[in-house]
């Protein structure tokens, strides 16, 4: 076949230095060979499918001239293949895929901008912007969901009907006070109260589509079309959470697979650093020099760490004990610091909720929890960093520990805020204290709107602080550093774009949005706009004010870590959602769930209205007959997948040891040949000593048997005569 001839032809022109078929021949290594072909053509199946061939052409590590020749050969072979209709179909499909990929390439948001960022600042900073883009798209899609199912129907139905059409079959005696809720603002307003209301979500903002309290519990029934607003509201919130979870899991899936395959995935050995360390996308002398400094710094640090570890293994008992006790003490200090922060947040929330002042003072009071949270998120990580210097962990452990502490601080401080709110709304969980309305009616006439307002204020404050930091801190810092040449200022230097705190800020904002989505349906839309602003602001500050970070940041494992932290935030907010849907009594005076004992009650009510078969089906799905087999099945699936994982790990180890054995065998055989050649030459000069050969032959045979490597027949005489 012409392929075989071409095969040999190629081998003659471009001798390979490591072809397995000619392993025993001692070859001198050609020093000038720059186009060594390392592609075993014999391994390609003779009847390769047509759709694989173009892909195979691209994947050949040959230069273009050779690839063209291969293509010609393949095209000459093509008429032999059976059905041409198949070929044409697969070709058109492939062309369609390429066109689709081209078009999708145009639709990717900010592709060029992020590419430029990666070129100038490296992969770590780029991963922050990828994460930001993911969150923007997630928020945008979820706001479309909410607008489509909740906002637009509410607007339409509000303009059509004005009465709620749900029958009032509830006993409302004794609860007339609970129905009081009058958020309508005064007709005449001073200008600055307008601004204050905008920023704090009260006044004219409170009774608007922004907050839960504005939506009605309307049920529209008109010739065959029915739309139940409370049900839609609840289901939209549930689907919003599920949608975010699915997106995160899909995105984590790819990175998780990589992390599992590459083992620990963390700081990887020296060979990994050296072979994969360089980022070819970097442009410009400054970025290159910084990357080189970075790599040198890391290599030096790692080499020194190794020396320290060797020394630490030889620490005396007394020194080890003192080091560990110091570490335990510092851990306690950090815990105390974080605990003090939580106490401060709880006090601030209680204080601000219990006062009702107006004007600028009132605004400050309302923003008190946000200010305390932001201040602590700024101060406590700084202190933790200083403490970490004393703990004397290795650099990689220090970074991970710092990140974990920062994450803990951020998410749990939000949790403390929510807990304090819950305490106030439900009178510390004791229903009796809160009669007659089952929630604290004096302070919270419409508690869902108040919670929504808190989340709205947190989001807004976060946004304002970022913009303010940009304008008031980063730009002046750059101006000072560029124009003032004092040593102290130059030592402080330009701002460094540190990836981890920025990512944690994004995770925090997203968690706030998730928590508030049930009570403030337009919050995802506000968040989309906010994150789009963030992208442009951060990009501007990056290029104008920042220098590339001197400390490296591994992109892929960090991506996995960011998504993991985002998942924790999601779990926190879903707990809040589940609790408020199931346990707390909705307000009587406002919202789509008034007159229900819990928000969840809408669903059983709606199911009762379905017809027979759907009801039976839903009851069956919820029963034990269905869920227990499902649970068992998923356990079996889990066991199967983990068994598969361990098998792959073992086969990798097996292949590695096989590789080692093969090379040892190769070396041994080469030595044998040399020896035999030497004895042969000696024999030619001294033919009087034939006795030594049989001994060496037997000796080698036993050694072959030990290796169990029957590359030759054991009885075959390797000597050529």
């Amino acid at each position, binding site marked *: 076949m012409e392929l075989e001839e071409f095969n040999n032809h190629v081998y003659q022109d471009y001798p390979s230095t490591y072809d397995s078929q000619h392993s025993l021949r001692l070859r001198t290594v050609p020093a000038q060979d720059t186009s060594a072909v390392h592609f075993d053509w014999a391994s390609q199946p003779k009847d390769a499918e047509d759709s694989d061939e*173009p892909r195979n052409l691209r994947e050949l590590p040959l230069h273009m*001239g050779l690839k*063209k020749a291969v293509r010609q050969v393949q095209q000459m072979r093509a008429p032999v293949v059976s059905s041409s209709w198949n070929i044409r179909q697969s070709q058109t499909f492939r062309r369609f895929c390429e066109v689709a990929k081209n078009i999708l390439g145009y639709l990717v948001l900010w592709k060029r901008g992020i590419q430029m960022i990666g070129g100038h600042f490296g992969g770590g900073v780029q991963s922050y912007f990828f994460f930001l883009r993911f969150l923007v798209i997630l928020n945008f899609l979820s706001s479309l969901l909410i607008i489509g199912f909740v906002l637009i129907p509410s607007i339409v139905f509000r303009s059509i009907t004005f009465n709620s059409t749900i029958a009032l079959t509830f006993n409302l005696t004794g609860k007339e006070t609970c129905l009081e809720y009058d958020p309508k603002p005064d007709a005449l307003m001073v200008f600055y109260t307008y601004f204050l209301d905008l920023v704090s979500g009260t006044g004219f903002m409170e009774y608007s589509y922004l907050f839960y309290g504005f939506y009605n519990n309307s049920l529209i029934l008109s010739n065959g079309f029915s739309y139940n607003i409370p049900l839609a509201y609840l289901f939209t919130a549930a689907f919003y959470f599920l949608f975010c979870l699915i997106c995160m899991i899909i995105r984590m899936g790819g990175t998780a697979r990589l992390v599992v395959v590459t083992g620990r995935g963390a700081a990887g*050995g*020296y060979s990994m650093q050296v072979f994969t360390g360089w980022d070819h*996308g970097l442009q410009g002398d400054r970025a290159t020099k910084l990357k*080189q400094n970075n790599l*040198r710094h890391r290599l030096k640090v790692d080499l020194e760490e190794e020396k320290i570890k060797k020394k630490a293994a030889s620490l005396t008992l007394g020194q080890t004990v003192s080091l560990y006790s110091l570490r335990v003490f510092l851990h306690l200090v950090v815990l105390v610091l974080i605990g003090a922060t939580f106490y401060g947040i709880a006090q601030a929330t209680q204080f601000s909720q219990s006062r009702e002042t107006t004007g600028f003072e009132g605004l400050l009071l309302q923003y008190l929890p946000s200010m305390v949270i932001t201040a602590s998120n700024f101060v406590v990580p700084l202190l933790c960093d200083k403490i970490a210097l004393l703990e004397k962990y290795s650099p990689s452990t220090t970074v991970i520990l710092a990140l974990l502490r920062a994450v803990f601080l951020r998410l749990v401080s939000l949790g403390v805020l929510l807990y304090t709110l819950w305490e106030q709304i439900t009178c510390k969980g004791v229903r009796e204290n809160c009669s007659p309305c089952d929630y604290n009616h004096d302070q919270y006439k419409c508690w869902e709107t108040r919670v929504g307002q808190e989340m709205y204020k947190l989001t807004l404050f976060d946004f304002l602080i970022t913009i303010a930091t940009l304008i008031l801190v980063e730009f002046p810092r750059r101006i000072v550093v560029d124009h003032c040449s004092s040593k102290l200022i130059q030592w402080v230097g330009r701002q460094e774009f540190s990836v981890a705190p920025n990512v944690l800020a994004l995770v925090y904002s997203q968690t706030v949005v998730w928590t508030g989505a049930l009570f403030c349906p337009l919050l995802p839309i506000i968040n989309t706009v906010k994150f789009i602003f963030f992208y442009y602001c951060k990009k501007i500050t990056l290029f104008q004010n920042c220098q590339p970070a001197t400390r490296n940041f591994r992109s892929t494992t960090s991506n996995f870590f960011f998504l993991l932290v985002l998942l924790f935030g999601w779990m926190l907010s879903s707990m809040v959602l589940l609790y408020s849907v199931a346990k707390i009594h909705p307000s009587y005076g406002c919202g789509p769930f008034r007159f229900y004992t819990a928000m969840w009650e809408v669903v059983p009510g709606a199911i009762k209205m379905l017809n027979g078969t759907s009801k039976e089906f839903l009851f069956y799905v919820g029963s034990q007959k269905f869920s227990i087999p499902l649970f068992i099945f998923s356990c079996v699936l889990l066991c199967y997948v983990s068994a598969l994982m361990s098998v792959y790990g073992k086969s990798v180890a097996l292949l590695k040891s096989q590789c*080692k054995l093969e090379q*040892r065998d190769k070396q041994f055989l080469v030595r044998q040949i040399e020896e035999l050649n030497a004895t042969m030459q000696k024999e030619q000069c001294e033919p009087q000593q034939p006795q030594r050969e049989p001994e060496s032959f037997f000796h080698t045979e036993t050694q072959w048997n030990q290796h169990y490597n029957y590359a030759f027949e054991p009885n075959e005489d390797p000597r050529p005569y």
Partner: protein
Amino acid sequence: MGGTSSKLPKDLLSEYQELTFLTKQEILLAHKIFSELQGRENGPYGSRVSMEKVLTLPELKSNPFRKRICHVFSTSDMKDGSLSFEDFLDLLSAFSDSATLEIKSHYAFRIFDFDDDGTLDGRDLEKLVNCLTGETDDTRLTAEEMRQLISNILEESDIDKDGTVNLSEFQHVISRSPDFVSSFKIVL
């Protein structure tokens, strides 16, 4: 500009699309940039551009491996690192977004193989580390550190203990690194 700009014929364009990992836009952009390097608008794309001119591209100008990259992808008989248009496309294809890990690791190995003998021995590794850290005297590692580093690298990656890293061992190390594909990228 205008009427004298040379266009890539459609059949060549589709052939290049089949033989490389580049999209149509990327091939056209590469053609435009290569023509500018040649200095002539409608020059035949069979002629070569010298290495010095190729190294004026902003994407390659500061890359410490720029000379090795040109040598690896050049098919010139004089071994002077000059690139034809097809060599240029090969270069961009290997460094593109959609190139496979095998192709990238193969070419990375050839770029790091400074003496072109098919394996990475101690001398190659030393030159590689010097490229990574900087060529000047105050940016190099000390001799002691270099020795320690090279012995660590060989201990980790030389599976068959022959004192050099061959292509399969190199690819084994690379396959465990999740960042390699995204860092081995040059986009015009």
